[in-house]
């Protein structure tokens, strides 16, 4: 496929099934999802609201167990949080009582290892946050907070980065900037990235493959390869190929929704306790 990408599977999701016990009974969030993510690949997961994207990602991270099926990292089952896997959350999720330096130090405090200062300074430089170590999250813009969260997530050199709608709360310009930043960092580190997003454009810009999930219970509906060379420019995003691919994915997501809820407006009213 693409340059710099080996054929070894990094993360394997095998028949992942997850049932939540809710007050109104059991809720089948994802149903026999299987997915293979290669080493150094960027894979996006898109799908309608409440299709279990976040549940799938949390299972990959080991934050959640599965009701059935399993997740393998380098062939070994993931049974809990793993030092090789790092999460980026929906909001930046910085700890407001710590300044940036202390926030970035947080994973090392928990793990009880010494931080790699040189690497962290390099990351801070790259995202343009050098000299902001003494600032508190409340003093930073949303984009800066999310950049700090990115630095924190990459600070201990995980081999897998799981991103749960990381840029959903940002304005579209900041979002594009963040996308470029992620690609830039990826070109250097070749970290395997799984990204959940609501933006098909973001998914196409960043990913080697886009996974479309069906509405609840979430299943892998289809997988679209994105065969554009990197680094991708904003001009590529304006080509007909991208436009067609965007449309195809959009159609697919809307199509599954329509088949399930004949009145598209009605789908808005469906209870969706699962975000993502």
């Amino acid at each position, binding site marked *: 496929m693409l340059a710099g990408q080996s054929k070894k599977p990094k993360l394997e999701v095998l028949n992942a099934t997850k049932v*939540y016990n809710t007050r109104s009974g059991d809720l089948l969030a994802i149903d026999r999802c299987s997915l293979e993510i290669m080493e150094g690949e960027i894979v996006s997961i898109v799908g309608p609201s409440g299709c279990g994207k976040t549940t799938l990602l949390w299972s990959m991270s080991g934050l959640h167990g599965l009701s059935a099926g399993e997740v393998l990292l380098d062939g070994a089952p993931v049974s809990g949080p793993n030092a090789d896997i790092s999460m980026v959350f929906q909001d930046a999720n910085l*700890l407001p009582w710590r300044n940036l330096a202390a926030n970035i130090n947080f994973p090392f405090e*928990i793990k009880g290892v010494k931080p790699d200062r040189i690497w962290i300074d390099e990351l801070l430089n790259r995202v343009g946050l050098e000299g902001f170590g003494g600032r508190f999250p409340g003093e930073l813009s949303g984009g800066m907070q999310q950049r700090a969260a990115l630095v924190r997530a990459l600070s201990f050199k995980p081999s897998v980065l799981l991103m749960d709608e990381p840029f959903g709360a940002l304005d579209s310009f900041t979002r594009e900037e963040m996308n470029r930043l992620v690609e830039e960092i990826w070109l250097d580190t070749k970290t395997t990235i799984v990204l959940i997003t609501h933006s098909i454009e973001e998914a196409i810009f960043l990913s080697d493959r886009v996974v479309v999930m069906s509405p609840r219970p979430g299943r892998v509906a289809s997988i679209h390869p994105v065969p554009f060379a990197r680094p991708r420019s904003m001009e590529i995003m304006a080509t007909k190929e991208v436009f067609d691919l965007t449309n195809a994915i959009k159609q697919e997501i809307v199509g599954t929704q329509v088949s399930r809820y004949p009145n598209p407006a009605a789908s808005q009213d469906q209870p969706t306790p*699962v975000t993502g």
Partner: protein
Amino acid sequence: MSKSDAIPQFKGKSDSPGDVGITNMSALTSGPGIKSAREVLAIILVAVIVVGGMELLLGFFEVPQYVLPKPSEIIVALVSDFPLIAPHLGHTLVELLGGFAIGATVGLILAAVITQFPFAEKIVTPYILLLVTTPMLALVPLLILRFGFGYEPRIIAVALASGPMVMINAATGFRRVDQGKIALARSYGASTLQIFWKIRAPMALPMIFVGLMVGSIFGLLTAVGAEMVGGGFGLGNRLTSYSSMILMPQFFAVVMILSMLGILIYVFFFLLGKKYASWEA
């Protein structure tokens, strides 16, 4: 673990009832800052007018000293009788600090532990509410019967008055669970204890300060009240003694000392909150 997991949810803020108290805290701690020399001047000017005006009015209408002494008489009494009052201030401080230390420690530990077990919390909460709402002064006569006229009944009363205050506020703080932040810590492999110290405790800190502030002021009230009930020492005892002797300047001097004590407590926790919990505001 698989079936009992909570559905991952992100709101970006805590989904707890603690926010009312937090607003309290920021209301308590975010008084308007003084901006210029002109404001300082205005504040001093008003104070001079109020105190000086009282002085003049009380003199002009020849209000007798036993009704309301002049500010100057109070200050004279405060200075000249301070050596007599100081030991009593010391006694009151011992009762306050001793009782508050016991009450706050027990209250904090109880809050931290009880909030980890929602069921136990439900059982204990009514009693805590009872302790919060019942004036502990009511128990002082009983405590004196049992423990005599020394420090003990007063320290116990202060602990009983301040502990539940600390506990109920701290518990509100500890209940402010932000699943996102806990998930963050867990994703790095944090243990339950690490989650407590690195996530739950700092999140609870602003409410803990509120509890300590309210609890210590309640403690001061109770200490002074208990001293008025019985026993031969303490600032509360001075109040009853001076008023029975109609030594009004001395009486008001003690009242002033008590006000200062209250303000000191407030400023202390204000600064503490500003230093360690300012991220909340």
